[in-house]
């Protein structure tokens, strides 16, 4: 079966996000002051798997082994058929 999986990688809470801070400054310069801004990275993946659980497990393995860096990142996996 084919599954569409969305993987979302974000920085763990408390990890400095200099990119987000720079964007926040730029937004403020444009007249949009913000109290919080964070960045995330989304991977849209299609793959074959026996069932939903397998698809989710495969996506988690992808995160563990390549897509995320466990020192600074956390990830969420969402499976859509």
């Amino acid at each position, binding site marked *: 079966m084919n599954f569409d999986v969305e993987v979302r990688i974000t920085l763990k809470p408390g*990890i*400095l996000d*200099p*990119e987000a*801070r*720079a964007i926040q400054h730029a937004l403020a310069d444009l007249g949009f002051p913000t109290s919080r801004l964070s960045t995330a990275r989304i991977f849209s993946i299609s793959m074959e798997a026996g069932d939903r659980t397998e698809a989710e497990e495969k996506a988690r393995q992808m995160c563990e*082994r*390549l*897509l995320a*860096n466990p*020192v*600074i990142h956390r990830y969420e996996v969402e499976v859509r058929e």
Partner: protein
Amino acid sequence: MRFAVVQFGGSNCDLDAAHVLSHVCGVDTDLRWYKEGLGRNYDAVVIPGGFSYGDYLRAGAIAARTPVMEEILRHAKGGGLVLGICNGAQIAAESGLVPGTFAINAYPKFLCRPTHLRVENNETPFTSLYREGEVIRLPIAHKEGRYMADAAVLAAMNRNKRVIFRFCDPEGRVTEEANPNGSAENITGILGEGGNFLAMMPHPERASEGVLGSEDGKKIFLSMIRYIETTG
């Protein structure tokens, strides 16, 4: 004695490293294209600076998962020396060869300038020709060089004397002002668990000839050569 400098697509300090090793330090050095692997046993492997795989995903992340890295891991497990410089250090961290990671600089732009470093441990194969506490001058050139690790890892690194270089001022003081990229505890050179793998963000190969303004980096390569000569 023979050194290898591994070339990935996007490596750009490979020829500088090979030049310093062969022409300045006088050691036989092979350039090894990553797809061809190491191909033989080497005394030391250098993973040079650059932008392997265009820094896609994270700096060093994709190169860290290539088969040549498994070979380098085996080389290191067998006691062989490995020096990861800049992108090579990022690759080493992504491979888990050294703990922690090199994240985007605290001020998120590319920094290219000379820095002062304090040699924190000279009892390593890479630093034996320096004095402990010696202040040396090497350039940095990176955007993702902010060393990060959790408190427990940092404590263990300090305890086990695996912190090798810290950013400092010209007098050797480790201050916030002397920390160009926001690295934890100013750390920019760390030793892997076996003590035979050094990952560092500054570029010793760019400071190994007087004509370039500093020869302070040469002692890293000469220390490695001496270590191989005395243990070989």
